[in-house]
């Protein structure tokens, strides 16, 4: 654990902060950290305080709870209400508001059997213990949580567990970055990306090369420790100063260019691309999500149950969409901190501490306090 402490060391942080200050030129630097894990760390450790005023971090959409559109939450609630179904989900998803203020938590209070689990394997165990129920696992997440879901499906197949299925909402990182880069230039200018940590451990650094070469944006893959993030920012500043656009890897202790081939093979075996998937804030993005292959469709909740088609819902006054695209800061949303708080979230970005609104509320609210009414 001493190993981790080194990446949180205040003295090293000050040295790094001085290096960044010395490196910045007279211009603005706007970097997006894609991952919610990075957003969380930036707020939790107060990294913004260690950066010069002209280096701004824009919080990206890499929070799996945040990007799931209301219609998918609604579908999960439909599943949970079906007689005989036990819906298993990660804790954060319980509180995400669906349409008309519904949530899994409220569905549970009204009698649905919704259980909070920490892993897919726990959901499998629940299926084994409740043979007369249909156990559905509400799978969410980027490439990091996808291999465990694949493992669960294979385990269910091997052990002949037939009362288990997956409501698959796994999404992919590179198409989302591309969607942000393809947005009209005036919406948000981004000079470079702090690239995902755990996601890159699975997919490697190669998928980001397109952003450097074709979109001319530097990408630095960084670990989740605060010093990792500072180091990545320094590397980004250097690249911008030197007009370079490359993929650099700060997180070599976990990430290789090719990624984790075994995990990739496992994913390819069980999942295939969806032609298109709706993201909160980013709209429909082609080839941006996974579904379960037909060979495994017995384990696919979407084919196993007859689900209604739920239209793309209006987000109402919540501005999560703009927050997720980095267009506004959470405090610019009129509901922030007044109507919308972690106890009573109006939008998904206020639910998970990886969401920008919650991170801002929990850790950073003393900044820009004047924006609040």
């Amino acid at each position: 654990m001493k190993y981790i402490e080194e990446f949180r060391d205040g003295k090293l942080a000050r040295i790094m902060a001085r290096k960044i200050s010395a490196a910045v030129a007279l211009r603005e630097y706007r970097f997006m950290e894609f991952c919610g894990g990075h957003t969380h760390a930036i707020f939790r450790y107060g990294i913004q305080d260690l950066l010069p005023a002209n280096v701004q971090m824009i919080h990206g959409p890499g929070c799996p709870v945040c990007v799931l559109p209301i219609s998918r939450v609604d579908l999960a609630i439909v599943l949970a209400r079906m007689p005989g179904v036990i819906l298993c989900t990660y804790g954060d998803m319980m509180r995400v508001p669906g349409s008309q203020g519904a949530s899994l938590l409220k569905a549970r209070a009204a009698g649905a059997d919704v259980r909070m689990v920490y892993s897919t394997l726990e959901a499998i165990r629940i299926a084994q213990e409740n043979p007369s129920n249909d156990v559905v696992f509400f799978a969410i997440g980027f490439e990091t949580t996808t291999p465990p879901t694949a493992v669960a499906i294979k385990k269910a197949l091997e052990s002949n567990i037939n009362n288990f299925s997956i409501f698959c909402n796994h999404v992919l990182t590179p198409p989302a970055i591309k969607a942000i880069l393809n947005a009209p230039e005036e919406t948000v200018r981004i000079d470079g990306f702090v690239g995902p940590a755990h996601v890159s451990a699975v997919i490697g650094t190669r998928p980001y090369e397109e952003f450097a070469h074709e979109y001319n944006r530097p990408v630095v893959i960084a670990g989740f420790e605060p010093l990792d993030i500072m180091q990545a920012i320094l590397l980004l500043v250097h690249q911008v100063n030197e007009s370079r656009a490359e993929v650099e890897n700060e997180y070599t202790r976990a990430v290789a260019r090719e990624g984790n081939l075994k995990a990739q093979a496992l994913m390819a075996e069980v999942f295939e691309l969806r032609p298109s998937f709706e993201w909160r804030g980013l709209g429909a993005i082609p080839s941006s999500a996974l579904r379960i292959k037909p060979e495994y469709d017995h384990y696919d909740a979407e084919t196993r149950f007859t689900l209604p088609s739920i239209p793309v819902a209006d987000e109402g006054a919540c501005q999560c969409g703009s927050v997720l695209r980095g267009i506004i800061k959470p405090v610019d949303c009129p509901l922030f901190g007044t109507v919308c708080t972690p106890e009573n979230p109006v939008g998904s970005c206020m639910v998970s501490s990886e969401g920008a609104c919650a991170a801002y509320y929990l850790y950073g609210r003393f900044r820009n306090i004047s924006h609040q009414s």
Partner: protein
Amino acid sequence: MESRIDLTHGSGGRAMARLIEEIFLTAFDNDMLRQRNDQACFEVPPGRLAMTTDGYVISPVFFPGGDIGCLAVNGTINDIAMSGAKPLYLSAGFIIEEGFPIDDLRRIVHSMAGSASAAGVAIVTGDTKVVEKGKGDGIFVTTTGIGVVPEGVCISGDLAQAGDKILVSGTIGDHGTAVMVRRNNLSFGATFLSDTAPLHDLVRRMLDASPRGLHCMRDPTRGGLATTLNEFAAQSHIGMLIMETEIPMKVEVKSACEFLGLDPLYVANEGKLIAICDPAAAPLILDAMRSHPLGKDAAIIGEVQEDPNHFVQMVTAFGGRRIVQWLTGEQLPRIC
């Protein structure tokens, strides 16, 4: 005697009388109990009385460093002591689930008796109920305490003022971490012990050092340090700035919390206190704390400041600044 509690032990009949006689009366023995009345009568000392009550539910019932029994005694003594009062008497109520092992009950009761007598406090009245299997989680213990506040002492959560110093009596997160490590059957090559302890003697020493310099005092149990600081901030309408590097914490607790996905600032303590003091008295009080075994790691961790938003802010060890928020919901492990 049988080996497990059954419903007859709560029925008011012979079995119950025997249980009380053999387990409770022998362990807690004192003059008032020996009179075998339904209440304890005692002289009321002059001054203000402090009274508190608390229910204890914990799983596992026995954990490294303690058990539900000593926890129930120490916890209530501490709630009394946090007003500056000297704790005098306790009552103890037991709700026991049918099937609970009598040996375990005996162990718990002995642990309570040991803690009470070590603290010089008598358990003077009590009650036992037995509930059907499935209607309780083994055993619940409720203790109520009474104490007397010395002349001139005025400690309350709404008395913090800008400029006051914030003191903590020792390493934080020990109790909750010990319980979580045991509950998850983990082993990190280190032993984790609950810090459960009665704090009234430490408090006495602090009051001796400065009877009027102590403004607020509370033991950061459930919700941990972060919750207690936020309670003070809200009650006193002030803000705080604490320094993460000054907060005493064991390295192994920090590592275990990291592994369990917990924030030690929110992890329960059972033998620590937070005091908010007049800045002039703070060094005296700190010295007094450090001279006591239960306060040897005491530290000044920050300062009270004016803040209309009542934020508790922290300068992180990394060098940035952030809010230390009220706990929202359960602490959950991250999934990404």
